């Protein structure tokens, strides 16, 4: 470790059982001035209880409007190693699957051109290469693209879509989250790299209602897997849960939100017409129960954190859509048409820095649905309106008038 690095407060974070980011960053301190000055500046933040980063700045790579977050130290003379400390966002592969060969490509590039520090991964899903100088951005980009990697989004653009493991490692996958994320990311390269929206647009894909990517809370467009037909039952496997002493009554039957499960003898009977696909019984008994055959995804729009008008979950716009062949670009036509109508309507009527969820609340769901050409459905609401202030658009006219 570098002898001149004195960080008594941060050293307290080297204690305890959870892996320490301080210990890890210190392994770079001898060879990276950036890592060393990052620790020094962070030590000062811990002393003074405040951050010391300036407010960004416009930096990037040629021809792209996003993917790089400018970051400068507010104390560049004291901490010259982090006078520039820009972030480079790199598209993650679908489902965050890697091989060591692939990740070593990234590591070698970032050791040469940046700080050697990362977030694996950022909240949106990208690999976040943390900290480099302005003059290293273009060489970093060139080295990445030579190895087949590209930048993610930032600012008012499409962000890198992200997805759960889906069919790659989960029996609950109701659609091919892996392939769909790949296809969407490739089709909308321009929207991803050149910000031209009102504000950011995040797409997340979860293969079932367990929603392992938190799409319902974190994405402007949440594609969440769902099925329409019956839960598949293997009665012999179900009987084994009973035989093994698993308390099916308390842990499954009593937990069903619509009370649609009954057990008779060693047989489970599900009233599928009342099942709301919550996943609890399937989660508890994966050997016996599985999602149905008529599979697809629901499209929910509008999730976001509180800034500005309050936090929102994404709400149902299209209760069910399916794609014939996820590997075939032509199969996506219905989805792409809808997405492009959504962007067009939001672009035309939304205001600057208005997320799509806030936009829908402002113009009303009815207006929004009409604008994008989607029919109203009881599946889009918890309940119909409870106030009588209805904007009627049809009237009878007296005969002979009008």
């Amino acid at each position, binding site marked *: 470790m570098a002898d001149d690095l004195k960080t008594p407060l*941060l050293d307290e*974070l080297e204690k*305890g*059982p*959870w*892996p320490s*980011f301080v210990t*890890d960053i210190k392994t770079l301190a001898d060879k990276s001035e950036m890592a060393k000055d990052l620790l020094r500046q962070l030590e000062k*933040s*811990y002393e003074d*209880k*405040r*951050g010391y980063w*300036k407010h*960004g700045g416009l930096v990037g790579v040629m*021809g792209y409007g996003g993917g790089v977050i400018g970051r400068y130290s507010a104390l560049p003379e004291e901490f010259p190693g982090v006078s520039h400390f820009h*972030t480079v966002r790199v598209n993650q*592969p*679908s*489902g*965050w699957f*890697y*091989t*060591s060969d692939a990740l*070593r490509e990234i*590591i070698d590039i970032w*050791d040469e051109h940046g700080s*050697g*520090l*990362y*977030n*694996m*991964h950022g909240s949106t899903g990208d690999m976040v290469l943390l*900290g480099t100088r302005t003059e290293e951005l273009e060489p970093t980009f060139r080295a990445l*693209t*030579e190895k087949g*990697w*590209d930048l993610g989004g930032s600012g008012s653009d499409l962000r*890198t879509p*992200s997805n759960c493991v889906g*069919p*790659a*490692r989960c*029996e609950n*996958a109701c659609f091919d989250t892996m392939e769909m994320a790949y296809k969407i990311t490739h089709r909308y*390269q321009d929207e991803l790299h050149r910000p031209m929206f009102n504000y950011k647009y995040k797409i997340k894909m979860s293969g079932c209602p367990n*929603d*392992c990517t*938190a799409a319902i*809370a974190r994405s402007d467009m949440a594609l969440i897997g769902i099925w329409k037909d019956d839960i598949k039952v293997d009665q012999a496997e179900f009987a084994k849960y009973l035989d093994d002493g698993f308390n099916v009554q308390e842990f499954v039957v009593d937990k*069903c939100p619509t009370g649609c499960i009954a057990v008779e003898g060693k047989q489970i009977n599900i009233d599928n017409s009342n099942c709301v696909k*919550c996943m*609890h019984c399937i989660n508890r008994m*994966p*050997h016996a129960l599985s999602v149905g055959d008529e599979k697809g995804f629901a499209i929910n729009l509008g999730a976001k*954190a*509180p*800034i*500005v008008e309050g936090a929102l979950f994404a709400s149902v716009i299209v209760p069910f859509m399916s794609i014939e062949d996820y590997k075939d670009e032509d199969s996506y036509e219905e989805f792409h048409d809808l997405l492009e109508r959504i962007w067009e309507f939001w672009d035309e009527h939304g205001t600057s*820095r208005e997320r799509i969820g806030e936009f829908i609340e402002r113009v009303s769901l009815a207006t929004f649905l009409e604008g994008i050409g989607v029919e109203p459905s009881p599946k889009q609401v918890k309940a119909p309106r409870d106030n009588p202030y209805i904007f009627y658009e049809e009237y009878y006219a007296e005969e002979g008038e009008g």
Partner: protein
Amino acid sequence: MATEAKRVTDIGPPHFEKFLHPIIKENYGQWKFHDSLGPGLLSHTGPNGTIYSVRMSSPRLVSSNFLRMVCDLAEKYCDGYFRFTSRNNVEFLLANKDNIDPLVKEINEHGQLVGGTDNSISNIVHTQGWVHCHSSATDASGLVKVVMDELSDYFTEQKLPHKLRIAVACCLNMCGAVHASDIAILGLHRTPPRVDSDTLPNLCEIPTTVASCPNNAIRPTSVEGKTTVKVDEEKCMYCGNCFTVCPAMPLADPLNDGVSIWVGGKISNARTEPMFTKLAIPYLPNNPPRWPEVTDAVKNIVELYAANARPFERVGEWINRIGWERFFDMTGIEFTKYHLDDFRHAGTTYRRSLHNRY
């Protein structure tokens, strides 16, 4: 002179298929079931075999050396195949079950932990904090470290009623989207932005700055002949949206910035609908390097949940069953006027029934 390769753009990410383990490719879309083999250990089985996943902790903020260690372990035990989870854990993907024990042993020798599956606390999703962000009200990586130090047994063991998900965001922008976690730790500013009228006219657009305020607290004004803005401090709720569009309105205030604690959110549809987190503790001081007030508060809530919730009940489901009045009684957290919502949809949180517990 060597000619450089032509500059290419808009190539997108590489196709995922080349990163998939052969067993995953052979069972893609055909998986039958999964089993939990213990904390941090999963197996998934399809018609063409079983893949074993070993889940390892990660600080998320990592170095090249950490990632090289991951690559080395993957090459030694699983032909170089691994992935990261949506909560920033590493998952090694093994074909050979016999490699699990030696891999776990070597992971532990590297000072890392294995766990985070089923009824456990998984890794804490979090934001940049003082490490890399201009608007943070606290540090994120440090908070994660000290909280997980207290709770690491809940990562390496599966002794909770159900899964418990914690998130940290260092300001209200919530890059960590903590608004739907079982327990959320949220940094916040508590004093209005300070307008720097010397630099503001050069750095900021006045109409954009005025429009950025959700409470109409910002008005144009003139100071010594310069057009700038003023803040109606009575109306300011310290959201920081103005600072996002106008760098000349910083909020950082070492004396008053701090941390709030929120509880009861969930994402999944299992049993009950997704829920937002609700305010438990409006303010705890920033007390680095180990934030003892925060770790005590989180540990208190986790331990009460562990002792009192029913099996397969998330924190929010537990609180809804016992009632918020009992939650505040049990935790000893003081209920204050700050717990009463006063923003856009405040009325939806008022009790409009006689369903109270006495």
